[in-house]
């Protein structure tokens, strides 16, 4: 039997750590409660249109705000925290390279977030099915999978931040800035671009590039993909008032999510590889 790769050993330890610290169960509980609640609200508010799909849409709206925070919190200290405490010196005095450490930590923390989100969604799936009497399995599994992808992309971003910074404080500052920028302020970007290009605020029908710009952030890409999954392509055509161009294909937004998952840890690694550990 050949021994498991060093990054796998690191990833396993990271996962075990999260189970020990109950971080995993925190994610499960928060997601289960919040998405169940938002699914229920659709039922309670009259006239909001009911049905399990709408409930899933409500849950995903909530997840789009919540999941980035949880993923960032779950991973932003992965490397910077160890660097500040000095345990990184013990770890890097052992055979794993810096690349294996970054990769192992990314995998381990992604596993925590993915398992936590899946279990949380499973609970809210049961709740939704109980409330609405049925559960559209394909839409539910799809939404869960997209939410996991969103979580993993923010783990990637958090690992990148953690590899880039030497102290917990700086990692936290950067994580907060990234959260505000990518999830809250990003909504303003397409509006600002619209204002700059056309001189007016966006109306009911927007240019085709508008949803593209909206969907370039991880959360934007996630929202776009979930909408496409739950509502189909018709909603996009209505929004832009015409046929959907190729660059609004779901695959483009899937690529955007993938890029956010891969590029930040890569950038972090490149800086970390050359860093002096004091």
């Amino acid at each position, binding site marked *: 039997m050949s021994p498991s790769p060093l990054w796998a050993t690191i990833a396993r330890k990271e996962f075990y750590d999260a189970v020990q610290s109950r971080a995993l169960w925190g994610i499960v509980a928060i997601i289960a409660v919040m998405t169940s609640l938002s699914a229920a609200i659709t039922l309670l508010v009259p006239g909001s249109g009911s049905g399990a799909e709408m409930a899933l849409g409500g849950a995903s709206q909530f997840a789009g705000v919540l999941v980035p925070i949880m993923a960032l919190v779950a991973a932003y200290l992965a490397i910077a925290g160890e660097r500040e*405490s000095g345990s990184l010196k013990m770890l890097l005095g052992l055979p*794993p390279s810096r690349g294996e450490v970054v990769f192992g930590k990314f995998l381990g923390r992604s596993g925590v977030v993915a398992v936590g989100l899946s279990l949380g969604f499973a609970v809210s799936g049961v709740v939704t099915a109980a409330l609405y009497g049925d559960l559209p399995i394909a839409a539910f599994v799809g939404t869960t999978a997209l939410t996991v992808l969103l979580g993993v992309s923010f783990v990637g971003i958090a690992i990148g931040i953690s590899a880039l910074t030497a102290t917990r404080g700086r990692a936290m500052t950067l994580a907060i800035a990234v959260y505000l920028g990518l999830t809250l302020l990003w909504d303003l970007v397409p509006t600002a671009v619209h204002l700059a290009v056309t001189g007016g605020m966006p109306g009911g029908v927007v240019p085709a590039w508008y949803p593209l710009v909206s969907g370039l952030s991880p959360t934007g890409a996630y929202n776009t993909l979930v909408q496409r999954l739950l509502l189909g392509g018709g909603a996009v055509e209505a929004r832009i008032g015409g046929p959907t161009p190729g660059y609004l294909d779901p695959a483009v937004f899937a690529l955007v999510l993938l890029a956010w998952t891969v590029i930040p840890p890569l950038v972090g690694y490149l800086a970390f590889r050359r860093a*002096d550990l004091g």
Partner: protein
Amino acid sequence: MDASTRPTSHSGDTVDGKPAAIRAAGLTKRYGEDVLAVDDLDLTVYEGEIFGVLGPNGAGKSTTIDMIMDYVRPSSGSATVLGYDAQAETRAIHERVGILPDGYGLYDRLTGRKHLEYTISLKRADDDVEDVLRRVGLDAAAADRVVGGYSKGMTQRLALGMALVGDPDLLILDEPSSGLDPNGVRLVREIAREHAERGKTVFFSSHILSQVEAVCDRVAILNRGQLVAVDSIAGLRDALDTGSTVTLTLESVPESTTLTEVAGVTDVAVEDRTVRVSVADAAAKVDVIDRIREDGATVLDVSIAESSLEDLFSAYTGDDPARNDASEGER
């Protein structure tokens, strides 16, 4: 593949016909414009020896180890460890080296046992956890507690145990005694000796002179990033001519003595009935006693003090080094 089955020094890195465990050539680390942490260090540590690096806090000991371990990249110069390049072949080095780094930390939420298991699996070693615990004097109850509740001494013992995992060809201990009680300090010495007896190399740094003196075959003295001296303790003594002091208590001091004529005597000081004679070589000690009796004195008491490493150190660096463990660690 088991690390211990591989040849120790893969490229047969030898200096003066002896295999080198660590070789630094022009090793330099500069931080910013004006901090020169390590300045053009040339140093060879041979396999099988216990080598001590001595110097006050901030002398560059930890930075040197940091460069050897690739925690920090040299500004210029190079280092090889067991024949491997410290910058390019770090994995090969880290498979064969055990390190107790300066300013290390452990995982507060993991037990001592988990720490050792993690180290063993990352090193692909087959050590028995109980065996390691026994070597560093941690009992099973302590091993099953999380490290967050450990005392400094227990933490240090655990970290030492982690360094021993995989029976490394080279054991690097940066200020290993900090936080340890006298038993712990003795343990570090025993571990170092035992390691060297099996042909392995021990490289350790300290700002506490007696610890280096007690265990090291050779010593390097670092000061302000520069290598000031490398030799055995005896060699350093000889080179500096700071031999021993013979203190004689006499019934009465003779009118005239001929002590200064004795070969090897470098200084004579008389105070009341006490005569202090500094001698440069060992044989002169007995001659001094014989001569003073020939001079007609009755000797009531004799004491002989070897010059301490403190004296040596001051002579080399012009600084007063720390005498005991007043300050822990360095940065």
